């Protein structure tokens, strides 16, 4: 049973992360082209840091760091009269009330908290990639379009929302679809974050079962479980590719790009 719900976990992660990351990406890209210098620096630094650090290192590091940061903040507010150091040598000690999640909370709270941390981490990392793509897409919209908007007396905000944003998607889509496929392929990393995902269950269920411990004794089936996962991911990425290709064809229609010109010439 756990094996099947874990597929739902992966799909849920994708369903939550993709829009969140896109939002982060949009915010990051808009920040990076802001006129106000500190906001611009913030956007650029966000993109640069996450892209520069090797991938899974960021994953392993960020979850613990985020967890500790949250507990530290709760500790500061909830237990102001705590005098001991938080970092005692090798240990990270906060007062009982600041523990996240609470020690006595039920199992599902622990699981949800872990999952939320994972989603947030994925969103931050992929948000940086997405903002890089969107930033490039915003630069790619022909300059003349913005100039025309300005000539019509639109403010900066108006020309951003009415001219730039609707037109940038066709430039962003190839990068974003690449990112989506990469996101699908990075979901097994959930396993590293301690979530009971499909990798965890394939490892558990496929392992040797002895008649003494289990109702269904069998040998080592992990190979077949992982083969099934392999096929699952292959089918998933292939289906996404096909759908995204169709979407690209639709978006290209009538655009001032070589692709759009080709479609017009072909009389589609």
């Amino acid at each position, binding site marked *: 049973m756990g094996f099947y719900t874990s597929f739902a976990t992966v799909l849920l992660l994708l369903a939550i992360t993709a829009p969140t990351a896109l939002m982060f990406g949009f915010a990051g890209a808009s920040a990076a082209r802001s006129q106000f210098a500190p906001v611009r620096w913030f956007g650029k630094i966000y993109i640069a840091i996450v892209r520069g650090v090797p991938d899974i290192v960021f994953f392993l590091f960020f979850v*613990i760091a985020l967890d500790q940061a949250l507990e530290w903040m709760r500790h500061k507010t909830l237990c102001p009269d705590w005098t001991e150091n938080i970092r005692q040598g*090798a240990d990270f000690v906060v007062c009982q009330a600041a523990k996240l999640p609470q020690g006595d909370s039920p199992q599902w709270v622990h699981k949800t908290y872990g999952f939320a941390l994972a989603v947030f981490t994925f969103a931050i990392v992929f948000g940086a990639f997405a903002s890089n793509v969107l930033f490039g897409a915003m630069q790619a919209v022909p300059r003349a379009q913005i100039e025309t908007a300005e000539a019509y007396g639109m403010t900066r905000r108006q020309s951003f929302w009415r001219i730039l944003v609707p037109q940038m998607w066709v430039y962003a889509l190839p990068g974003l679809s690449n990112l989506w496929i990469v996101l699908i392929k*990075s979901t097994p990393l959930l396993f590293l974050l301690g979530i009971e995902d499909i990798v965890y269950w394939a490892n558990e269920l496929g392992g040797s079962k002895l008649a003494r411990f289990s109702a269904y004794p069998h040998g*080592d089936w992990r190979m077949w479980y992982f083969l099934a996962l*392999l096929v699952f991911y292959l089918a998933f990425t*292939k289906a996404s590719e096909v759908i995204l290709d169709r979407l690209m064809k639709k978006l290209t229609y009538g655009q001032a790009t070589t692709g759009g010109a080709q479609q017009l010439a072909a009389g589609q």
Partner: protein
Amino acid sequence: MSCWDTVADYGLRAIGIGLRGLPKTDFTLCQQVTLIGSGMIWNVYFGVISLFVGFFFAISLALGKFSDRWWLRLPADWFVFIFRGSPLFIQLFFAYFLFLSLKKHYSFFDPFTAAWLGALIVLVCNTAAYSASIFHGALLSIPKGDIEAADAYGLSGWTRFRKIIWPTMLRLGWPAYTNEAIFLFHATALVFFSAFPAWQQRGDALYYASYFADKTFNPFVPYPILGGFFILLTLLVIGFFSAINRRLNRHIPAEDYQKIRLRLNMFR
């Protein structure tokens, strides 16, 4: 104990030379830097060998994909699809259990369950698939005029490939291939986090970094150290590959050819 003693004890720990037991308490900064650095030996080993072997494999795959004959094209297409469409993490798991069950029947497969060979094979296939599509793209973008000129000079077959197609393909594909090489080095960190066991605690850099993070509950020291090592490695790779890039483009005015631009942004 001075830092030099630590380096002497643990500098080559990852390949089994030096003290057997890892430090258990009172971790010094020096110990962490030394052990994580010695773990980098494995990352470099996996990266360099699979890059070298994978390069030739990738060229043959790219030529296979480019071929007119279906019995060359189809297998190459499928190989690339399978290794690019599924996550490297799952591939490593699957390969490990595949070799494990083969080992039961044929003792020939004994060394394949060890990381140094089994994971190496997976990494070779993986990088070959990704690089094959890079080189295939480069083959497709060779200017038509170059080939026509070669035909006009009466070059054909092997000579035309060696003198015209091969250098142009390398030249066009090289910037993308550089990024692929960097991802490959980053991907080596996954090896010991999948099923492949670290025999006698001889692991790669991430293995030791997470060892320290587990023992000290403090991710803020080992992971930045690891990040630093990886950035150093990345810079070395970039230096080496741009030297080759300059050599490949030595007949072209410096401002015309494609400079290598760093794009550190993809997971496997």
